[in-house]
């Protein structure tokens, strides 16, 4: 593949990205977003002036690794567990029998 930063962003690429991100775009939105995202990526090309081949990447600003807690069950009463479960389910769009309900996961309809 040629250097992906060398070509401009296309409508097709934005449509593909929108689908990956589970967003539906109208034709007008596709045009607008393509122009706006291309402008941001164009600006981001300024980093090409930097030679970073030998520079290690940073994904976190403070050197912490493998933060574990003691593997003990938290001391939560049966009543508190039930109260928390109810609080979570209470704001779900749809719940039944202590489970989140969704439309059929496969196919158009059952």
């Amino acid at each position, binding site marked *: 593949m040629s250097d992906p930063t060398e070509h401009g962003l296309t409508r097709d690429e934005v449509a593909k990205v929108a689908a990956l991100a589970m*967003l539906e775009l109208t034709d007008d939105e596709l045009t607008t977003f393509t122009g706006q995202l291309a402008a941001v990526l164009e*600006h981001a*090309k300024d980093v090409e002036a930097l030679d970073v081949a030998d520079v290690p990447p940073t994904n976190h600003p403070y050197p912490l690794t493998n933060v574990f807690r003691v593997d003990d069950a938290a001391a939560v009463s049966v009543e508190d567990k039930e109260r928390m479960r109810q609080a979570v389910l209470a704001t779900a769009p749809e719940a039944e029998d202590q489970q989140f309900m*969704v439309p059929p996961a*496969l196919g158009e309809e059952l």
Partner: protein
Amino acid sequence: MTDAPITGLTLAADIAAGRSSAVAALDGHLARIAEREDEIHAFNLVTADQARAAAESIDQRLAAGEDVGPLAGVPVALKDNMCTEGVATTCSSRILEGWIPPYDATVVQKLEAAGAVMVGKTNLDEFAMGSSTENSAFGPTLNPLDTSRVPGGSSGGSAAAVAAGFAPLSLGSDTGGSIRQPAALCGVVGMKPSYGAVSRYGLIAFASSLDQIGPFTHDVADSAALFEVIAGHDPQDSTSIPHQALTDAGVLSVSERLSEGVDGLRVGVISELMGSIDGFEPEVLAQTRAAADALAGAGAKVDEVSIPSAIYGLSAYYLIAPAEASSNLARYDGVRYGHREQGKANTGLMMSASRTAGFGAEVKRRIMLGTYGLSAGYHDAFYGKAQRVRTLIINDFERAYQDFDVLLSPTSPCVAFPFGAKADPLTMYLNDVATIPSNLAGHPALSVPFGTGADNMPVGVQVLAPMLGEAVMYQVAAEIERAAVAAGGAS
């Protein structure tokens, strides 16, 4: 609005001494809210009844001789991206409208333990993505100093709440400048702590390696006091800095340093952020130079310093932050919480329709930008390269801090701008150029008001410090504040 604003520490002292009460303090601030909130729109929700119950309880405990905490009875406003048990938390997004968190963020627990009284949840750019609060799904917040202008963002509601006298203290979150820039634009003090100094537990994630919660206040002493209340190790946040490291660096006792002055301290003014980039207003640069001169006059050794990679921070940030956001915001799919579009034939269609209806344009832009930068074939060129630029910025700062104790720059290239003035997304992003490097490095930085710029709007000067350098950062900020007051230019 002719009275000088009462600070949180003054209020706490008055309440503790019996000269005022938590209920009286609350009533005073609710009266100001009643007067101007319809115009300003700092809040998504004012929790008046809950606040009154809390204030009454605090007054009773004080009357019984209890030690209620350092902020007993002081009203505080919270950015609406911090979870509050039983109180709606929206991130100013339709996708979370009506959601009630089942738990409190750690900072909320800490405020309560300190005796503070929450008065409401403040407006923000949707999911903290923006620099003007114009991206809120519930309408913009107006700048209390000039309502034709933006308050900045994304924590514009929290900045406006303090500036308008709705609460003496508030909390915001800062991913690329979202505390410091609105503080500058509203003429208040705003501080982003070292990454990991304040727990992110219960802060709804935007970009997890950059997000930090921090205080908005009228002055530096309040900022230090509020920071001491919210800082500290939290086992609930795996990126939280260990207690020993925080205490060794003096991060939990910054107030002690405020009166020490700056004699002998080395202050570096970042040359790249003093005009070599377009868009910095001359008045903003002049005030920043005046603040540096004031520090020199107080005994500091002031010199220019180059952070060559600083100008690449913007590009790195707008690849890294959207990448993290696209991952963090994948959870909003209409299944477990938040908005769900009804009548869809299967789960996939329901998810897409819910996300499409629930997210605003800026959030969609950033999700797509992040998804693109992480996708196969593009990852190394965009996200990977940005992470290496992040290392360069950290290295440049490290080099500078061998010669300097703190660095100085403008907080924002410009004073508060009119609504709609930066409608193009890239133009808006450029506004964050001076604040972003501190987020990428994880370093603390603070904006302190120093005089005014164009149209008599306030200017914020940014004090940057190395990792866990909050103590010296506050020490220098206090001196700048003293100089601003002496010059009569303090807003």
